[in-house]
């Protein structure tokens, strides 16, 4: 394309007068700019098609289905906002919202605290520390559902390893996944263990970018460990912390696979979260499941938006 434009430009300058040549070059530049623009749009098309097919289209279908009554097999019947009205009256749905928030808060606090503490400990470039960084990342790469099944066996009340370990410390065996009080905590512990490695690596990357001179200068001024952490480390890490906490929050809201393999939302309703609600309703009432999906989407969007507003200067 560029060769063609150059060739035409050369041809015009050879054949025309000075004014015509200037005009000709202007048209060629315009043509080149438009062509580049067109090329850009053409290259964007595959990505746009993917976004449309896998994000926008399913979202619009979800919205449409939420206005219907449909059990997957029979006819779709338009019922307006009845699905939403039912959701906000349904005690089980309300319970799943509470469980989702509880799970998110616990996972968020636990994962973030553990990640930043581990990142601070693992800043060194010693060989053993580098090996340890790899080791903490191993749980991240194993599929959630697979690890969930393994931890389910670990939590087994009679023969599980966790109760065996507790017995060494003379702690009585716990019911874990079979206790209404402990099941959500048990699932959260697993989730923290599984994911903290990823956020630790991200935070280590951020920590390594903090200039050492800042710490040296602060130490010369007499700053202690706490002051170094709160006055230098945390402020320097603000953009990364914002990214990490946002991703962590969103993924916690969407938690499903490990909860399903470990407890299927039970015992009772103890670990039922919004996504398990959506899954269990999907094959019986597509409309209700779609409405719940939309509620979840709006919840996450609202929280993320509020967060962004409150921490405006932390955005990239």
């Amino acid at each position, binding site marked *: 394309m560029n060769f063609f434009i150059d060739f035409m430009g050369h041809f015009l300058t050879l054949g025309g007068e000075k004014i015509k040549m200037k005009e000709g070059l202007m048209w060629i530049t315009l043509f080149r700019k438009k062509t580049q623009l067109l090329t850009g749009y053409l290259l964007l098309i595959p990505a746009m098609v993917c976004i449309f097919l896998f994000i926008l289209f399913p979202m619009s279908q979800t919205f449409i289905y939420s206005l219907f009554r449909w059990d997957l097999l029979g006819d779709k019947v338009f019922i307006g906002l009845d699905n939403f009205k039912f959701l906000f009256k349904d005690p089980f749905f309300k319970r799943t919202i509470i469980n989702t928030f509880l799970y998110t808060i616990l996972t968020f606090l636990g994962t973030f605290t553990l990640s930043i503490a581990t990142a601070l400990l693992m800043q060194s470039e010693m060989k053993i520390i580098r090996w340890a960084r790899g080791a903490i990342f191993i749980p991240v790469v194993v599929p959630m559902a697979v690890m969930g099944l393994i931890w389910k066996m670990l939590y087994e009340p009679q023969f599980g390893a966790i109760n065996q370990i507790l017995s060494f410390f003379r702690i009585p065996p716990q*019911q874990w996944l079979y206790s209404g009080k402990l099941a959500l905590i048990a699932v959260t512990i697993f989730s923290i263990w599984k994911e903290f490695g990823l956020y630790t690596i991200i935070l280590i990357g951020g920590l390594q970018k903090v200039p050492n001179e800042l710490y040296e200068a602060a130490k010369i001024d007499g700053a202690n460990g706490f002051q170094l952490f709160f006055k230098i480390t945390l402020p320097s890490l603000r953009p990364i912390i914002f990214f990490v906490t946002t991703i962590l929050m969103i993924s916690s809201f969407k938690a499903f696979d490990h909860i399903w393999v470990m407890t299927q939302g*039970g015992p009772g309703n103890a670990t039922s979260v919004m996504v398990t609600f959506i899954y269990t309703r999907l094959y019986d009432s597509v409309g209700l499941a779609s409405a719940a999906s939309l509620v979840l989407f709006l919840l996450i969007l609202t929280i993320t938006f509020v967060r962004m507003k409150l921490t405006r200067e932390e955005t990239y």
Partner: protein
Amino acid sequence: MKKLMFFLFLIILSSTLVLGIDISTAEPEGKINLSLWLTPISAEDILHSMVSDFNSSQDKIFVKLSIVDWATGREQIKQAIGGGVGPDMFYLGVGLDQSYIGANALLPLSKAGYTKDDLNLFSPIIAMNEVNGEILALPLYYDSYVLYYRKDILKDYGFIAPPATWDELKNMAKTITEKSNGEIMGFQIKGADDHLNAINLAWQTFLEEAGGHYMDMAILKSTLNTPEGKTALEYMVSFYNEGISKLGPSAVAGFREGKVAMFEFAQNQIIYEKFISDANMKGKWAVAVCPKGSVSGGSYSGGQGVAISSKTKYPEACGTFLKYFSRPENMLVWMKGAYGIPTYDLSKISKDKKVLAENFMAQDKENWDAILKQLSLSTSYPMVEQRYGYSARWDAQKRYLIEALMGEITVEKALENIDNEVNQSISK
């Protein structure tokens, strides 16, 4: 080095693509091609072999079998049919599902070449698959809940026969748990352990034994929160309240290890858990009729079957395949593969085929006598009633019944919540 890596990548990618192509079941031209989706109702190689035998015997029909897993298979089938791309024939549990019936998704067998004489060969409980006089799915074999008991443990604690009533079950279980200081659980409810879905089957057993009903069919409302429903659930809860049983420990694993003396579950565990072939278990266990409740000795009875899609273009061909797949000679396949109870009325089929079943049962007479006796005590009404709001009930029961067993909710509240969720599902 970069070139080498690139070529390696290309090789791996190509291999993945080639391995992903399914060439083993290329559909032959000139034949009617039918698709069949089944859950592993028997060993997969046996199912493929049966289909392969059929295909070899046919000039005009070819059936392609796909096995879908138990965990998500039913949803996959429903999704495919709902999307209009479902198979010609598919797995459907005995008892049917109202959402299929309501959507007219099932082809009556009479339209697939089944005559009244053909259907009369089956035992009367084929009525579990009947709607308005039409059989909508063919049962391949039946399952029935039975009481698994450890003869050796019962003997150690002074019991020579399994319990025959609820009171006897409770007393025996309590004695065993107390005298063993909790080392051995006298009785564990399947579903209060690692097999969460099984609570639905256990519940059906106790509910039927208490004379309860899932639905008031006259007004199509869920009716678990009734005196009978409360009797059943209170009985179940009492095992945990009184410390006889504990939530969590596996009934099957505990049974095998001698930590659980009794549990109730489907007869197919005899094969699936290899109790029958495990040398360590020889002589230590047996099955019995479920202890009789306040009203009846019935229990969960269901089974596995195949339905024909109403959208199939080849109903007669589907019928031909089904007749082959479910023929009396194949009774042994289901019996050997899952201890499946024959669906035929043995008194109506030819003697040579009847003898096949009888000879197999004779090898384990004690257990087969109990299984057949249990099936004769069960009724079909629970399976028919459960069709309504099936998925909602299945999920709600799993949650609220367990909450009741944990003592986190009253019996009445648990049943009321289940009724509410089921009624909401039916009324949508």
